[in-house]
């Protein structure tokens, strides 16, 4: 083995060991990168200027990266929805509606998990919220503890694969760079890009398949083993129509918001960043109407104003800087200004209301911390990968993957297994920034791959499976923290296993039938 190979391997092992100490990931990445950069310089493999380009690298691909603006915007949206108790209400009213059916509570948990996909995309947060909300009810009503904990852990991870999710945005950024690099390496000098919208489109059908399979499993359990998922008696005094009303009120606004955001990205009308800002504004107004009933009317009026604005702008030409502006367009422009002012007033009222209750400040401070945390990892990972390239690690990995017996199939399988194991220790974000840039260009350059979208979705679903798998899965780890001591850990493991099997089934499905991933993006984004 030559020096580069030894250094590459030691570098990864050192990183894993240092991460295990629990020191923040971002700084561990940076420190390890620097340490091995020093060794590389001493060994004559690279020189210091390789590390000194870090600021330039950060400026070009982090600070000026417009796709990444979507991160703070989506975080704002997710945290706002979380802090204004949208999830609670949703779960409560769905539980009441489906509860009287056998298996109904479990199904509600799955659906809410899928809808919360818009949330911050950090597994821990979703699993903890869902665990606190639904587990006590499920246990009190005599649900089998294994089934209950398994459902919650599985539903909590759905948020990663179902768009719009933050981790998919980050993955899209990294994957798109890898794709361009793979094409350049092949000698294509005008590489085709891959957008975040395409990755969203690719992840949608596999995500919905997972939701469907989860629900199917709940139904099968309710039929075959009725004692595991009992029906819940409807409380007397609550009539069905009142419930439907409550459910509609809890379900429709967030669903509308998510569909509007996702729809505008998938149809290519808006970029993820633009759609995310609409989502954040929507979440603020939704939050305001949840805090005070009086705000509902204000928010509805603002919504009408926006709809009217869109109608006007699609009928009239509102550009006033033209040579000749017909008077009808002038009148329409005036109306549009009034509507904009009306909307602005509604938004200002919502901001004031959320500010007064303290929610707005809390959401924004939390947004600063979560976004900074993500960006800091990106900064640490930038230094790590500079060194990694400097000591020739990328070529070593590429050669290794290319020379495997069995070609592309083995290469992908090995990378997937490696990521699966890394998923026990590292979160989605770290793996995206550290592992994907190293392996993806090589994998994408191999003949017969189904392209970056397919590879991205496969990786995302693989990681999501890893987070569920006992004994190390992240989701289980977080759930353990909120599950009462009386529930044995083995019961949780037993409960989650069927979901792991479902995940593996779905992974096999998209591997054998890549069309499940590529069909929708092709339909939506290719002319």
């Amino acid at each position, binding site marked *: 083995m030559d020096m580069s190979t030894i250094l590459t391997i030691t570098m990864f092992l050192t990183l894993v060991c240092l991460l295990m100490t629990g020191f923040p990931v971002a700084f561990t990445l940076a420190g390890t990168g620097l340490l091995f950069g020093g060794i590389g310089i001493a060994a004559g493999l690279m020189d210091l200027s390789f590390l000194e380009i870090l600021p330039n690298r950060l*400026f070009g691909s982090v*600070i000026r990266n417009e796709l990444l*603006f979507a991160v*703070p915007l989506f975080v704002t949206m997710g945290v706002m929805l979380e802090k204004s108790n949208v999830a609670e209400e949703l779960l409560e009213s769905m539980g009441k509606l489906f509860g009287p059916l056998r298996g109904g509570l479990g199904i509600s948990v799955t659906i809410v998990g899928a809808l919360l996909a818009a949330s911050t995309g950090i597994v821990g947060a979703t699993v903890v919220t869902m665990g606190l909300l639904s587990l006590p009810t499920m246990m009190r009503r005599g649900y089998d503890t294994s089934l209950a904990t398994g459902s919650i852990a599985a539903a909590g991870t759905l948020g990663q694969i179902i768009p719009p999710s933050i981790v998919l945005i980050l993955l899209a950024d990294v994957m798109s760079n890898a794709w361009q690099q793979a094409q350049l390496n092949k000698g294509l000098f005008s590489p085709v890009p891959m957008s975040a919208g395409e990755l969203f489109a690719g992840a949608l059908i596999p995500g919905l398949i997972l939701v469907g399979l989860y629900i199917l499993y709940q139904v099968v359990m309710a039929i075959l083993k009725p004692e595991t998922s009992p029906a819940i008696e409807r409380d007397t005094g609550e009539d069905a129509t009142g419930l439907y009303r409550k459910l509609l009120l809890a379900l429709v606004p967030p669903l509308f918001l998510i569909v509007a955001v996702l729809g505008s990205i998938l149809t290519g009308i808006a970029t993820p960043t633009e759609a995310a800002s609409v989502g954040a504004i929507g979440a603020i107004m939704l939050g305001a109407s949840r805090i005070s009933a009086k705000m509902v009317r204000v928010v509805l009026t603002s919504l009408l104003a926006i709809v009217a*604005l869109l109608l006007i702008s699609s009928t009239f030409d509102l550009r006033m800087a033209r040579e000749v502006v017909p008077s009808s367009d002038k009148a329409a422009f005036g109306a549009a200004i009034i509507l*904009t002012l009306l909307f602005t007033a509604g938004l200002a009222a919502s901001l004031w209301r959320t500010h007064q209750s303290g929610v707005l400040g809390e959401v924004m401070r939390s947004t600063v911390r979560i976004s900074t*945390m993500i960006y800091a990892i990106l900064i640490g990972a930038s230094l790590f990968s500079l060194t990694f390239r400097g000591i020739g690690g990328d070529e070593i990995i590429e050669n290794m993957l290319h020379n495997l017996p069995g070609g592309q199939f083995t290469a992908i399988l090995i990378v997937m297994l490696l990521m699966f194991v890394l998923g026990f220790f590292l979160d989605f974000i770290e793996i995206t920034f550290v592992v994907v840039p190293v392996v993806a260009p090589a994998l994408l350059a191999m003949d017969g791959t189904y392209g970056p979208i397919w590879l991205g979705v496969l990786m995302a679903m693989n990681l999501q499976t890893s987070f569920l798998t006992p004994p190390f899965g992240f989701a289980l780890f977080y759930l353990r923290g909120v599950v009462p001591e009386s529930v044995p850990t083995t019961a949780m493991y037993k409960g989650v296993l069927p979901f792991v099997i479902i995940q593996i089934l779905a992974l096999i499905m998209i591997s054998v039938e890549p069309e499940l991933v590529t069909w929708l993006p092709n339909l939506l984004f290719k002319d």
Partner: protein
Amino acid sequence: MANSFLKRLDSFAERSGNVLAILPLILVLLQFSIVLMVYVFSTGSIQLQESLQYINAMMFLGGAGYTAFKDEHVRVDLFYSKFNIRQKARTDFFGTLFLLVPFLILFWHASVPYVLDSWAIRESSVEASGLPFVYVLKSTLLLFAFTLTLSAAADLVRYGRIFFGGND
């Protein structure tokens, strides 16, 4: 002495968080206004679009110290969460000393000349009608170094005292 030093750094971090919290709100409002301008009024402004970069950069680079103070830089807590206070202090003290501090030295060493070069030529946007303050945008890199340096100093004192402080 060490106590008041630590207190001052901590209260700086806390207050910086309150100030920074206004930035994501501005980001949301500005991006949404741009959406309205583009999709309703069919106008756009490169300057407004570029100003998003400035706000975002100030937020995530200036927020590094505040996030560290709130201990929200994500950790692999497989073992860390089971550590006692002293073991945690050991991780954080030596981690800061041997991983974070060297990185910060490199960061200062590389970014100060980078930023100064940009100031020297009063670097402007590559877009003809863009904002002419690229040197300011690049200077935000120093915010990251500055807030993290303060946080690292505070952590070395804080965790050093716990780790070396014996049994109290």
